[in-house]
């Protein structure tokens, strides 16, 4: 019909957002969120999504986000009604269990994490369903089929396997869950597929796995040699054993730092694979997401945040030690009280506004930008064949994901 001429690469997938406009949006958002003690966050999230969706164009037409803050708010209220009694029950049980009953304590902790894990999976899948149902391209709605329970079952099996194998199965878990998610995602009636293999990730994962194994080995060694609370018994040891303990500690620390860096590289590789295996009809995706560029942006962001934290921390510390100079508690110098309150308030603002904003503008923005501009699509016109679906969409927003703070924005 209309798609006679070949499509230039620079028109397939384009990114129009600028850091300046994004910073303005985030500034307004965090200001309103602060003023409304957090309630505005639903509308803030919606504004950020609208912003990114409309600034990503495929074949000259932008994505469209049709969700509203009100929907997110209602979804949140529903989840509140579920999580609040759950939390009350948990703290009630926790206050009755005697402190010296270690077995019961550990059992309660494990139960807590199992419930949390299940809620995270459910929350994630429901969030994806909501987002897809509120995303359109050229008027055609995205959607997510599949069942949350099937996803939860799949995720539970994989996490069990990952724990048993000390994380060796982690890349396979990630990719298999992604496959389930993609296979049930559709544009209109056109289903997506995933044709990728986690075997491509074993080498990037290897250093992370080694770091995990080393850490677990060190913990087990430490417990067998020094018991649960090493700090107390180490000081009672002879000098040479003490130094060997600290050598082990330093080795583990270095291994873990290297492991964290390796994990960053692994995440980039995983994202590349996740995009590169995507298929919609005859259209196929590939990604060249750059590691070094994202790494540099990440390091700079972390450094800036540490600097932003150091200032107020030093100020508070100085004021606190100064005011309590005579060493008696409850004798804070009343002349400095106002300054101290002001300084604490400043720290809260830094903590609540500055850090998330710096992180999002520098790092988050770059990740999204690079994901879009380094993705190449073969046969993009095939996607134009997608037809509108009449499937139902969820009526309320992703409350669980919000309450558990998953999904980023």
């Amino acid at each position, binding site marked *: *019909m*209309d*798609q006679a001429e070949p499509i230039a690469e620079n028109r397939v997938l384009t990114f129009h957002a600028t850091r300046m406009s994004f910073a303005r949006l985030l500034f307004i958002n965090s200001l309103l*969120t602060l003023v409304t*003690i*957090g*309630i505005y*966050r639903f509308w803030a999230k919606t*504004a950020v999504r*609208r*912003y990114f969706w*409309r600034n990503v164009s495929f*074949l*000259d*037409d*932008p994505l*469209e*986000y049709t969700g*509203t803050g*009100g929907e997110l708010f209602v979804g949140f209220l529903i989840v*509140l009604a579920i*999580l*609040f009694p759950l*939390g*009350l029950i948990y*703290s009630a049980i926790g*206050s*009755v269990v*005697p*402190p010296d009953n270690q077995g019961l304590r550990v059992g309660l902790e494990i139960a807590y994490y199992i419930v949390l894990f299940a809620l995270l999976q459910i929350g994630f899948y429901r969030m994806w369903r909501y987002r897809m149902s509120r995303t*359109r*391209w*050229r*008027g*055609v*709605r995205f959607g997510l089929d599949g069942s949350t329970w099937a996803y939860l079952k799949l995720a539970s099996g994989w996490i069990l396997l990952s724990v048993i194998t000390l994380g060796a199965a982690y890349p396979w878990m990630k990719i298999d869950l992604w496959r389930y998610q993609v296979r049930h995602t559709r*544009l*209109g009636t056109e289903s997506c597929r995933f044709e990728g293999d986690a075997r491509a990730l074993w080498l990037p994962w290897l250093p992370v796995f080694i770091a995990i194994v080393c850490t677990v080995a060190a913990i087990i060694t430490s417990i067998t040699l020094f018991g649960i609370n090493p700090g107390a018994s180490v000081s009672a040891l002879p000098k040479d054993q003490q130094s060997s303990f600290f050598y082990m500690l330093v080795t583990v620390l270095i291994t873990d730092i290297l492991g964290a860096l390796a994990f960053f590289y692994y995440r980039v590789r995983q994202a590349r694979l996740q995009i590169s295996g995507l298929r919609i009809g005859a259209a196929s995706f590939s990604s060249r997401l750059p590691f070094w560029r994202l790494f540099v942006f990440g390091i700079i962001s972390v450094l800036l945040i540490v600097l932003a934290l150091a200032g107020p921390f030093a100020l508070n510390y100085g004021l606190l030690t100064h005011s309590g100079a005579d060493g*008696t*508690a*409850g004798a804070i110098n*009343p002349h400095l009280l106002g300054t101290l309150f002001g300084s604490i308030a400043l720290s*809260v603002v830094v*903590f*609540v506004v500055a850090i*998330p904003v710096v992180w999002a503008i520098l790092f988050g923005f770059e990740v999204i930008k690079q994901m879009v501009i380094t993705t190449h699509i073969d046969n993009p016109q095939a*996607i*134009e*064949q*997608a*037809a*509108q679906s009449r499937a139902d969409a969820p009526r309320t927003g992703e409350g669980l994901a*919000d*309450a558990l*703070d998953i999904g980023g924005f």
Partner: protein
Amino acid sequence: MTKVKPLKYAVSFNDGKTALRHKAVAAIDGDTLVITDALGKELARWPLSDIRYTDPARRTPPLRLRRSGHDARLGLATDDKGQWLIQHCPNLTQREAGHLRWPTWVAAGILATASLAGIFVYLLPGIAGTVVKLVPPSVEQSIGEQSRQQLLSMFSKFAGKGDELVCLEPAAQAILDQRANELATLMESPFPVRVTVIRMPVVNALTLPGGEIVILSGLLDKAESGDAVIGVLAHEIAHAVRRDPLQVSIKQTGAALLLSLMIGDVFGGAVMSGLTSGLIESGYSRDAEAAADFIAVTALNQLGWTALPLADFVAGIDRENPLSDLVPSFLNSHPSGENRRRDIMALSQGVGRAINSHEWKTLKSMCK
């Protein structure tokens, strides 16, 4: 009648059935936008009043428009930045029917705030009061022992160099235990009362659930007579007998949980939990304080001990509290010292001493 041939503009059209992009021509005909394909075949007719921005936040070209309630979309990439169309569409920024307007949101917000206040001020204390009745005293006792251990290990970090945190002076402890048991029996306490004195230069006494009472040594230093200390002890035992500490801790747990869920993660868990616990931890209600005073003074009367030193003591503490001037009395959980003093003095009938001067000397030096 001569009909002016309408101006035509090139647009891209998505019919809402597929994701295909149709090159099309749009023209305004009266109060409708007529969209035709290159061959002149009519694709759609959109009433001008039904045309909306797909994203009201983006009003710069290339413009994307939709028809209200429909899946079809229109792209205006060229032609005078779409001004020709914008001028004719009155409702471009209108939201979908079914979306709430801002007055509704403001009203809902006020209602939500009011109901939240209701939850914190009435519902949570009410629930806590009911739950307390369901907790057997033996369970409260084990909760109390647990919180005593936590409190002691927390305070031991602040203890001075080399000093034991708990003041273990058997003679003084025996005096306190004897008075505490007498008072507790008289008040029909559901559990035995245990008094612990710790070395802390703060003028205060705390009551934990399950009859665990902790006196900070600052109180002994500050008190001018032993009768004031026994008066404070009676007041704290009255709280224990009323099971106020358990109710407060249930109330605080619920409130902290609700707040942290409400505020979400934007405030960062650590910062907020610190701030909120400070906000909520206003302790007992004014009614609870007044009731504890009443029970305490009644018990002191029955034993023939004077409550007047207690009255002077609470008034004196209040005068030295710098916050009492800043916080209006209706916000401050403790009834103001002067009011309490008046009430205690009106109730007090005892004239005897709870403790003789020799015993008071022993008590006062128990942490020295």
